[in-house]
């Protein structure tokens, strides 16, 4: 892992970090880890816009498009600052890209997209996809997604990804031409493997279990956080009522009037401050959500391992049974009960020519079977190797990112406390002048 010491110090020492700053820290970490792509190109999702058009069933629909801007790194440093290349993409295109990556690189923990629909909302936020706050948070999430892919040692080299960033027209066709959809494992196949695999790698089994736990715990956390945000909002906003009543009361008092009036203003300020506080908390929630969805990606990698392992086991099993059959045929002994054996007992032995033919077929099958087992074994081993590398990479990234998230939450709380201290000190001064 690249030395990220300077980021750590910067974050902790400066307690006035805004969410965008801590976001920047994360991005800088990604950029400095330095894939060749990011060394060449700056990527951002700069804007979002509403469009209307006709959809597949020829009905009018409104949707949002996002502006992807790319800019060569050198140009910026030279100070010439040319106009960036840009193109517009819909959320569904991002989904298509991700689905492609999932199939093309099954051993990679593919970065997740921001949520499709707003979940874990508290009452102030709407679950409306068209809500400007939701769109803005989604824009940030999409940019994060692109940067994560661009900073991944394997994914960043993908051509489809590159053309996603650079070619507006015809990209969809290019993706479909890869035929990735056909290569996707069916859900059923994967499930079947999960149930029947005998010797999955222990580490993957543990990792899968970890993925389950992570998902469960983060879901709980997000639910509680949403309810707590609701309550906190209530507490702060009711103080606004103090402001109103103090102001009205000051009108009927002589000496107390001034103190009351100014205290009332501070109560209003206090009530208003909750909006910023909760917006920052929303950022923390987004960071948690990313890893909620990452948990799913991890589980997908583990499931793929189970599948390859299962297929190896099936091939090996098949080979064993074929070898057994050969042995029986060669030695004439029936080791295990088989219908064929019984019928030949009942209806007489085969002719030596028949036996010869059968043996020959079996030999071929065994040869093929051994090839298949060798292939699958290699596949499985390679998969285990590369998947585990990526899982290790993911673990390090997760530990770093989540620790940063906790730190930025603490910084947020500190800022909230400082604001509270200021407001109530001011109010206290006003009250004492009552």
């Amino acid at each position: 892992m690249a030395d990220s010491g300077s980021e750590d110090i910067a974050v902790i020492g400066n307690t006035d970090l805004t969410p965008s700053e801590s976001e920047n820290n994360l991005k800088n970490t990604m950029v400095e880890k330095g894939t060749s792509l990011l060394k060449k190109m700056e990527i951002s999702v700069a804007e979002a816009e509403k469009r209307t058009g006709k959809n597949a069933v020829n009905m009018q629909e409104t949707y949002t498009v996002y502006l992807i801007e790319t800019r060569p790194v050198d140009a910026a440093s030279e100070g010439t600052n040319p106009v960036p290349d840009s193109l517009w993409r819909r959320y569904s295109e991002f989904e298509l890209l991700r689905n492609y990556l999932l199939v093309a690189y099954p051993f990679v923990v593919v970065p997740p997209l921001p949520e499709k629909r707003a979940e874990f909302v508290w009452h102030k936020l709407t679950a409306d996809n068209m809500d400007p706050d939701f769109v803005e948070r989604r824009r940030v999430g999409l940019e994060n997604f692109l940067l994560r892919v661009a900073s991944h040692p394997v994914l960043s080299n993908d051509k489809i990804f590159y053309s996603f960033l650079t070619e507006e027209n015809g990209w969809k066709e290019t993706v479909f031409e890869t035929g990735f959809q056909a290569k996707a494992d069916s859900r059923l196949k994967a499930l079947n493997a999960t149930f029947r695999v005998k010797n999955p790698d222990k580490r993957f089994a543990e990792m899968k279990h970890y993925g389950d736990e992570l998902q469960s715990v983060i879901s709980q956390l997000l639910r509680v956080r949403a309810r707590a945000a609701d309550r906190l909002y209530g507490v702060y906003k009711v103080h606004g009522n103090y402001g109103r009543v103090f102001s009205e009361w000051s009108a009927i008092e002589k000496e107390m009037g001034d103190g009351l009036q100014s205290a009332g203003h501070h109560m209003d300020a206090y009530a208003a401050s909750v909006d910023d506080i909760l917006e920052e908390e929303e950022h923390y929630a987004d960071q948690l959500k990313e890893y909620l969805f990452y948990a799913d990606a991890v589980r997908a990698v583990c499931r793929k391992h189970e599948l390859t392992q299962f297929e190896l086991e099936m091939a090996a099993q098949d080979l064993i049974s074929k070898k057994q059959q050969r042995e029986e045929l060669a030695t004439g002994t029936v080791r295990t009960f088989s219908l064929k054996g019984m019928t030949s007992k009942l209806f007489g032995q085969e002719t030596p020519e028949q036996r010869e033919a059968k043996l020959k077929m079996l030999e071929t099958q065994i040869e093929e079977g051994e090839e298949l087992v060798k292939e699958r074994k290699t596949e499985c081993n390679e998969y285990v190797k590369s998947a585990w590398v990526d899982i290790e990479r993911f673990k390090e990234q997760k530990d770093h990112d989540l620790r940063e998230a906790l730190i930025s939450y603490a910084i947020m709380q500190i800022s909230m406390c400082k604001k509270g201290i200021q407001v109530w000190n001011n109010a206290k001064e006003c009250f004492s002048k009552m």
Partner: protein
Amino acid sequence: MSDPVVDNAVPSGNSSVAIPTDISGQILDLDEDDDLEVFSKGTTLTEGSSFNASMQTSPASMINQYKFEEEDADTKDIFVTVDNPESIVTAIETYVTYRVMTKTTRSEFDASEFEVQRRYQDFLWLKGRLEEAHPTLIVHPLPEKFVMKGMVERFNEDFIETRRKALHRFLNRIAEHPIFSSTDDFKIFLTAESGELTSHKKQGPGFLSRMGETVKAVAASVRGVRNRPDEFTDMQEYVEAFTQKIGSLDKVSQRIVREKKEHLEELKESGPIYTLWSQSEEELAEPLKRMAGCLDSCCKETEEQVKELNDHLIPVLHEYVLCTETLKAVLRRRDNIQADFEAKTEALAMKKADRDAESKVLSLAWDSLVGRSPEEVKQQKQQKLKGEIKEMRVELDKMEDRLEWANNALKSDWTRWQKVMRTDLRSAFVDTAERNVNYYEKCLAVWESFLHSQRTEADGNGKVDCS
């Protein structure tokens, strides 16, 4: 809570003068004579100890007395505490008594320290007596008799403690009041043994007389007042507005407490989730556990904050809500005194008109039928009227005095009340603000220690490039 609206106050048992009223004048004739010897009109009493609510003292001297007492307010010479609630169980009932301790250097007290047991009823009695004797002075409210919302038991610890504090405040306000604190009733309340107090209580005006007072009061309030002085109208308007505002403040504060409690419930759930999470992690286990610890600490601080709001701010606001009832009653009583006076003035005017009018033909005709000469009848009538008018005049003078006294008393006490209110509410809000600052400071420390731990963690792990 209906207050015993007594417009013709009979401060009997206080060894002060009873105003001749229609009802009680006959009953307390003897007392009246005795008292007249001691308290004659025009006497200015400068000794706080023997100063009682003498209705016959001139209003002017009354004001002077008031001011004198106020200047002395800084040198407190009486200290009262209410504590030690105890449950008393008898065959008939169960009730709570409180210990009332007094320390004083005042000469009218036989000793310098007293300790007595009092129950809520006794406080109620004292309040009633003070209100009867001084209908236009403002008595600090008592905590309510019953608690309506939430089925709080009378013997619930929190309820008793809240009540005890309110009783303590009540008694202290009475002790600080220049007039109330010098009344006999107050002295007896602080010093008498339970038996003594019971027999003293029985010396009030009879039940019937009190009934009569109430009826009269209702009649009076229906009558209404004609020429209310502007300042009292202003007071009324202020009281109406203040009632609204303090009521709102009370409600807002209670709502804040409710919301904070609900926030606390959610906060309490998050710590354990972080702990649970830490069990699945390796590198992250430590910061997650610390996070859980921080959240738990913040929960404790929030609980403390809510408790303090309930213990300090809410009771004070509530008391001033109750105050508004007292204020309204005081203004009503003053109005009634004025209404009575106006009615009497009218009656006198009518009687005079009677006297000046020509003799009525009809009555003369009757009288001549009965066999009396017109001149005789006329003379008799005039005599009768003259007598009645004289009586009415005397009474009217007394009522005028009473009205003037009541108005001045109210004006002075109003100023005093406003000062006290201002002090009480100011310190309540200042304290609340300060407690909130403390709360945030404590939470700030919690989170800063978290940050610090993460920095030292990073340093310790050697991840940091210390350059």
